[in-house]
């Protein structure tokens, strides 16, 4: 144990500890300005701690915690978006206080929950124990349930209720799947904690009972898939996005879906390592395509701007799950890249949408027109964001879609047809709505935006750069993970 490894351990601990401490503080502290700043500061500190993971040596995987290539990507992305969202949240929440939609008491609750949610997500990423991971994912889910319902309007409560009921069933499924994995591992690895340690499971998975693993995977896929928002398990997602505060929508789309996806991926790796178990690919591809096409069509009839982008998240999760289901270095690379790009872009879009709906006082699409004229910075930001999410270059989503479509075509030509079809249908819907919102005779309030553009544009710039230039170390690293994922 030298100093640097000690320091590393500290980094992991910091990632977990900072949010907990901050949550406690925030729950106790009054005053909006200070709490918002503390929230931002805590998120920034977490981000810094996460970045430390890069420079320092990684700890040996323990019984509970693990840092490897795969989860560093998720952690850094998570803490980064968590930080920018907290920035956005500060300016968003100020406005909510002014209009009286939230009370200061709500706010304390909100900020504390925000940090607990960050804690849950970080814990889910670093946990090496499938039981612990389950607990962490559920913690994050339950905190978001509470935040979705924070406005106490009856739509918000409905949304939260729906989220809660469907989420609970998902929780149950995931737990059952976890138990089954334990049962499969127990004869080989031995009773007790060891049979839940992911690194040990992966090493010995070849000896596990394949059929048990199969059933387990089905439950895990459905259980965590509920949180990923895969069709037909998606029902909670649009409403939760639409009715909660926008920073939470951004976090839901940008981060929570990733957490669930990460869990699915971990088990996918596990199953793929077992030679006799069913390959998880076809299942994931089917659900991915179903989500993509379903969400693409659902985009057309949307009247609420946030709900529409929520469906777009379902669509993109479908793409990502499809990519990982297809497997192979190219598709996995595309899936990873797409996931990162989607998180950045979608949260940027929600940042824009948050300000827009505050200015216009509504989320109805038909009430928002001509944004590029009245609010050029926001409007063009939205245009760039939607263009990016729709897969137009030179944004990063284009690169991942390019890789995915072409590698699909090379490997499973027939699957490329529904994939391209879904992409095109979704594209049509997104651009149709964008045309309505960003252009035309302006409608609604024209008062200037009291917004911080930094979070939105920092995301967009990153996405733009990624579309043109990916630094070689990052690429090598992604490739390594892609190979890890098989």
């Amino acid at each position, binding site marked *: 144990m030298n100093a640097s490894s000690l320091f590393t351990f500290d980094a992991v601990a910091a990632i977990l500890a900072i949010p907990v401490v901050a949550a406690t503080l925030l729950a106790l502290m009054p005053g909006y300005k200070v709490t918002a700043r503390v929230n931002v500061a805590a998120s920034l500190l977490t981000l810094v701690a996460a970045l430390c993971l890069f420079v320092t040596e990684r700890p040996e995987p323990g019984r509970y915690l693990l840092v490897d290539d795969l989860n560093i990507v998720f952690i850094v992305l998570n803490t980064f978006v968590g930080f920018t969202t907290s920035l956005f949240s500060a300016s968003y929440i100020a406005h909510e206080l002014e209009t009286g939609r939230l009370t200061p008491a709500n706010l304390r609750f909100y900020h504390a929950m925000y940090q607990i949610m960050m804690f849950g997500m970080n814990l889910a990423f670093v946990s090496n124990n499938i039981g612990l991971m389950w607990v962490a994912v559920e913690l994050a889910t339950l905190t978001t349930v509470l935040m979705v319902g924070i406005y106490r309007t009856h739509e918000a409560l409905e949304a939260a209720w729906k989220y809660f009921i469907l989420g609970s069933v998902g929780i149950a499924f995931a737990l059952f799947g976890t138990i089954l994995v334990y049962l499969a591992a127990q004869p080989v690895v031995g009773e007790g904690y060891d049979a839940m340690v992911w690194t040990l499971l992966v090493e010995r998975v070849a000896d596990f009972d394949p059929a048990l693993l199969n059933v387990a995977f089905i439950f895990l896929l459905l259980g965590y898939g509920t949180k990923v928002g895969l069709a037909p398990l998606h*029902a909670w997602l649009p409403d939760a996005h639409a009715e909660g505060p926008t920073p939470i929508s951004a976090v839901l789309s940008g981060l929570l879906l990733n957490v669930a996806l990460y869990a699915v991926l971990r088990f996918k790796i596990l199953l793929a390592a077992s030679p006799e178990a069913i390959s998880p690919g076809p299942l994931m591809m089917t659900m991915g395509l179903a989500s993509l096409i379903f969400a693409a069509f659902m*985009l057309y009839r949307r009247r609420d701007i946030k709900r529409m982008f929520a469906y777009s998240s379902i669509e993109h999760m479908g793409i990502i799950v499809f990519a990982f289901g297809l497997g192979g270095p190219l598709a996995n690379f595309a899936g990873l890249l797409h996931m990162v790009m989607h998180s950045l872009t979608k949260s940027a879009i929600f940042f824009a949408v948050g300000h827009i709906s505050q200015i216009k006082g509504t989320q109805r699409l038909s009430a928002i027109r001509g944004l590029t004229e009245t609010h050029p910075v926001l409007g063009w930001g939205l245009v760039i964001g939607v263009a990016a999410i729709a897969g137009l270059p030179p944004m990063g989503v284009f690169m991942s879609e*390019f890789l995915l479509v072409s590698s699909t*075509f090379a490997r499973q030509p027939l699957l490329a047809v529904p994939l391209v079809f879904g*992409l095109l249908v979704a594209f049509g819907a997104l651009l149709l709505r964008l045309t309505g919102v960003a*252009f035309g005779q302006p409608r609604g309030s024209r008062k200037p935006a009291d917004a911080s553009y930094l979070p939105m544009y920092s995301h967009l710039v990153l996405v733009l750069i990624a579309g043109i230039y990916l630094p070689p170390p990052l*690429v090598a690293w992604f490739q390594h993970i892609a190979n890890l994922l098989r």
Partner: protein
Amino acid sequence: MTSVLVMLLCVAALLATAALAVFMARSKQATPVIYGLSLSIAAVAFATGLVQLVSPPAEVPILMLPFSLPWLGAHFRLDPLAAFFLLVVDLGGAFASLYGLGYGRHEHAPHRVLPFFPAFLAGMNLVILADDAFTFLLSWEFMSLASWALVMAHHRDAENRRAGYLYIVMASFGTLALLLAFGLLAGPDGAYGFAAMRGMDHTPLATGLVLVLLLVGAGSKAGLVPLHVWLPLAHPAAPSHVSALMSGVMTKVAVYGFIRVLFDLVGTPAWWSGLLVLLIGSGTAVLGILHALMERDLKRMLAYSTIENIGVVFVGLGLALAFKDAGMELAAALAMTAALFHVLNHSFFKSLLFFGAGAVLTRTGERDMEKLGGLIHRMPVTAFTFLVGCMAISALPPFNGFASEWLAFQAILQSPDLPQWALTILVPAVGGLLALSAALAAACFVRAFGIAFLGRPRTDPAANASEADRFSLAAMSILAGLCLLAGILPGIVIDALAPVTQLLVGGRMPVQTDMPWLSIVPVTESRSSYNGLLVFLFIGFSAWLTAGLVHRFASRALRRAPAWDCGFPQIDATMQYSAGSFAQPVRRVFGTLVFRARERVDMPPPGTLSPARFALETHDLVWEGLYLPIAGAVGYVAEKLNYLQFLTIRRYLSLVFLALVLLLLVLALWS
């Protein structure tokens, strides 16, 4: 290497100009600065392309930058084909910038045009420079995006928004098709570099699929029927100099993509691919110009005419494919030269015509021909240059349009040596369609010029118009000069195209600059030859001679008098022949079939005072037969699926439950 670098620097400079435009768009100086910069950069790029084409270096310059796809890098290459198209693009870009210097001052929302204009140019340049699939598609889609933003410049008009939407969706559709084509060519290992694709052998099935995907992908951008519907909406929606770029240049970039993939990357496609391209090309030509003839919006008419010209280009390409497959290099070179020459010519006269239409639009505020008239008196220079453009696009000697169509006809006459019976029989018929489209084009542009510029003004704005500004006039005049030059000295262009045809079909046309009197000879002089220069001189000389003789020896007296009114004094200018009535005979002949046109005349019985009524009903069969059903189907599915948004929680749970049971069943039955 250096030339590629220069080109890339030009692209970078254009992008920098775009960025500059974002920040200074609202300043007064923005218009001259941005267009001035674009003009000079495009001129440099044009010069580079010209040098590359005229004296190609022994080794094709390539360059790799560590951008884009990480393990691939961004590859750029500047072979003669690319050089030729760069030349077309940057020449068009330079003229559009020059025109924009004047035209841009009338723009009421310059901040929506200026940033995207240089970006659009940069995108087109990049497409042509790209030497790997990713860079190609990235630039391709970037080009679409930039032009989409330009189409949306006047976004308050609902028509424009609709046009922009249709455009971007079709563009994306095309890109996905191209993406699939590249996916096929790259093979399972993902060899996305063009160099790797060139070296690979592709199965006949793959090449066939690539052709179809290419016709969809590049064809939708170029405007091939039935993927053309966006074009006549989107091109006119943009500011006129952008319309000129989109119609005159961007469609050429699509042609470039088609040529690059089919002739360069695929190698030798099957013989029927030539047939397919020929049929689609000739159909596109005829349908495009028929639409143009029915159109009363000046700019939209020009956009439809672009479709026709693209059809002509594709006929040339189809012939080249067929000849190449049959191993007839010379004939293939002839056909390819015709196609490329027409590409160049079309970029000249279509830019010119759009500039003219733009000048009319700024000075009268009208695009509707029925509200113009008599502009030749108020805008003499614009009218003259527009007339030159009309003659050139109608394929009339001695202008350039004729030279390239003449080459296409000569290529058609090489068809008896083709081994396939289907081709030998069909190619002359295609030639007939080509001739039909040329004749219809003449009718179309007689109508356009005659209605808009001749006769008496039909509205006050037309009567009070003034001549366009000097920048616009300069751009139009130079282009008119180029139309004439390319028409009377086609040999120079043909010789310049030789390295391109050598690259693509492995042959070239005979050296033309050595021919006596600068005539052009496709194969041998005894077969056919044409000398535009002499034709021009002869006509000019004999017209001058006759006029001189008549004026000298016969009479030179002239008197102005009212026109013959047939005993019915004409009350106003609206009683002139209108654009609609001019097109009526053609509509009756062709329109009943192509547009299902129906005319209904309600003639009141004699003695009643109610006015007679004329009602015309036309259908765009492609739109109604293909696009509306697709839109309807998407809407229907969306509507049906939309019920899923409003289910109760219990029903959602049922879905989850069913999914679980289904998966368990699958598992139970699987092993």
